[in-house]
C-alpha cells in the first residue's frame, strides 16, 4: 500500500492540486475564485512535469567541469523544466488576459458573481 505513496508524493500532490483546481473552477461562482482555481490547475501540471524530470542522486543540469565526462544519470532531465518555462509563460499570459476581462466585467456589471452576472446579461 505504501508503495503507492513512497517516492510518488509529488504525483499525488499534482493530482490533488489538479482536482482542487478543477473543483474550484466548476464549483465556485465568483469569477475571481474560478480564475485562481485555474491557476492552481496549471501549477499542478507544472509540478507533474518537474516531478518526472527528477532523478535520485542527480544534480542541476549545469555542466561546470568539461574535463570529466558528462553522464546522463548525474544530471536531472532539463527538458521538462524548459517546457514548463513555456507553460508558466502561457499561464501568466492567460491570467493577464483573464484579469483584463474581469476588470471590464466588473466595470460594466459591477459584480463578479456568476449568478448575478448571468441575470444581468440576459436583460
Amino acid at each position: 500500500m505504501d508503495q503507492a505513496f513512497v517516492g510518488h508524493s509529488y504525483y499525488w500532490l499534482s493530482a490533488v492540486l489538479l482536482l482542487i483546481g478543477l473543483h474550484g473552477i466548476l464549483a465556485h461562482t465568483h469569477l475571481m475564485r474560478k480564475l485562481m482555481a485555474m491557476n492552481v490547475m496549471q501549477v499542478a501540471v507544472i509540478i507533474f512535469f518537474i516531478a518526472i524530470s527528477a532523478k535520485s542522486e542527480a544534480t542541476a543540469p549545469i555542466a561546470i567541469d568539461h574535463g570529466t565526462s558528462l553522464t546522463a544519470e548525474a544530471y536531472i532531465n532539463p527538458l521538462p523544466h524548459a517546457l514548463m518555462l513555456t507553460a508558466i509563460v502561457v499561464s501568466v499570459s492567460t491570467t493577464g488576459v483573464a484579469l483584463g476581462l474581469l476588470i471590464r466585467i466588473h466595470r460594466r456589471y459591477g459584480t463578479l458573481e456568476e449568478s448575478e452576472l448571468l441575470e444581468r446579461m440576459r436583460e
Partner: protein
Amino acid sequence: MTEHIPILIVAIPMVTAICLPLVARLSPGAARAVDISGYIAVCVITVMALVRVLDTGPWHYELGGWPPPWGIEYVVDPLSGGMAVLVAFMGLLVSVYADSQRRQLPAWRSGVYDSLFMLLFSGLLGIILAGDLFNLYVFLEISSLAAYGLLSAGGNRAIVATFRYLLLGTIAATFYLLGVGYLYALTGTLNMADVTSQLPAIVGTAPFGVAVTLIVLGLAIKMAVFPLHAWQPDAYAYAPPPVTGFIAAVMSKVSAYALLRVLFFVLGAEGAAGAVIDIMGWVAVVGAVAASVMAVAQTDVRRMLAYSSVSQMGYILIGFSISNAHALTGALLLIVNHAVMKGCLFLAMGSVVWRTRAVTVDELAGMSRRLPWTMAAFTVAAISMVGFPPTAGFFSKWYLLQGAVEADAWVFAVALIVSSLLSAFYFLRAIERIYFAPVQDTHVRRARVFEVPVGMLVPVVVLGITVLLLGLFNRAIVTGVIEAALPEL
C-alpha cells in the same frame, strides 16, 4: 527560400501580427495592405507546399537544423497541407470581410484587431504543421489567447462569454498538456513520429490510457463536442461577426485535425486509443442528435448555427469512430466542407446583423428582398448543411453513411439521418422565412434592396460558390488530397 516554406507558413503571420499595431499607428492604409498581403502570401505558400507534398511525399522541416527527435519538427503531409490551405483560404476571405466591417474604428484599434487575427491565424497554422506534441500545445495556446482577445471585442455580453470560454479553454489545454506529460514520461520524446515508433512498448499500460484520455478530453473541449460544448453558443452569438465566422469555420476543425493526428497517426488507434475512439463515437451519436434538437429550439440564428456546429462535430467524431476508409474520408471531407459552409453562414448572418440588426429567425422575414445575394449564398450553404445533392454537404454525408453501412453501424447511420432531418427542419424554416414571409419593416429603414458593400458581399458569395464547387468536384478533392492523406487505409 522555398526550403523554408513550412516555417514561413507560421512565421509570416506571426511577424506581421507583431508589426501591424505599429504600422497602423503610422498609416491605416499601409496596415491594411500589409494585412492583406500577409494572408495572400500565406495562401500562396500553403498551396505551393501542398502541391509539392502531393508530388514528392511528406516534408519534414527541422527548426534550426536540429534533427528530430531532439529538435522541433514541422511536418507538411497531404493532410496538414490540405488543412493549411483551407485555413489560409478562410483567413483571406474573412480578413477581406472584416476589413469592410470595421471602417469606423480608430486606426490603432483596427491595427490591434488585425494583429490578433494574424496571431490566431498563425497559431492555427502552427497546430496544423506541428510535428511535435508540445509545440502543438504552444500553438494551441497562442491561438486560444488570440481568440479570447477577438471574441471579447463584441460588447459587454461577449466579455462574460469569453471569460467562460477562457476557463474552459484553459482546462482543455491543461488536460492536453498533462496528457503529453504522461506520454513524455512513457517514451522520453515529444516528437510525434518518435512516439509512434515507441508505441508497441507502451500500449496497454495504465499511464498510456490516462494520457490518451486526457489528450482526447482536452481536444474535445476545444472542438466543442457535446457535452463539452457549453461555451460555444454564447461565444458565437456575442462575438463580432468576422470573428465568429473565422473561429466557427476553422478553430474547431483544427482541433478535430489535431485529434485525428494524435489518435490515428501518432497513437495508431491502438489499445486505449482504440477504446477511446469507440466511446467517443457513442457520445458523438447522442451529441449529434441532441445538438440538432437544441438547434431547433433556438430563436437567435447565430445560436442555432452554433448548435448546428456542435452537431456536425458529432458527425466528424462518428466518422473517426467508425474508422474505415469511407468514414474517415467522409469525416475529412466534412471538415473541409463544414469550414466553408459555416463560414459562409456566419459571415452572411454578420452581414444581416450589420445591415438590419435582425438576429432571430423571425426577423429574417423577407430578407431575400433586402440582401438578395447574401441570402442566396446563405441558402446554398444552408441546403448544403442539410445535405441536399449536389452540394458539398451531400457528399460528406454520403461517405459517412457508406462507412456506417459497411461497418454495420446502423445506430450511427440512423443518428446521421435523424440529425439531418432535424437540421432540414431548422434550416428550411429559416429559408422559408427569408423568401416567403412578408418583409418586416421594423428593422429596415428603406423598403428596397439594400445589399451590403462589396467587401462584405464578395467573401460570402465566394464561399457560397465554393460550397457548390466542393460538391460537384468533390472527387478531385477526395482522390487528390484525402486519399493521399490517409495512406494506410
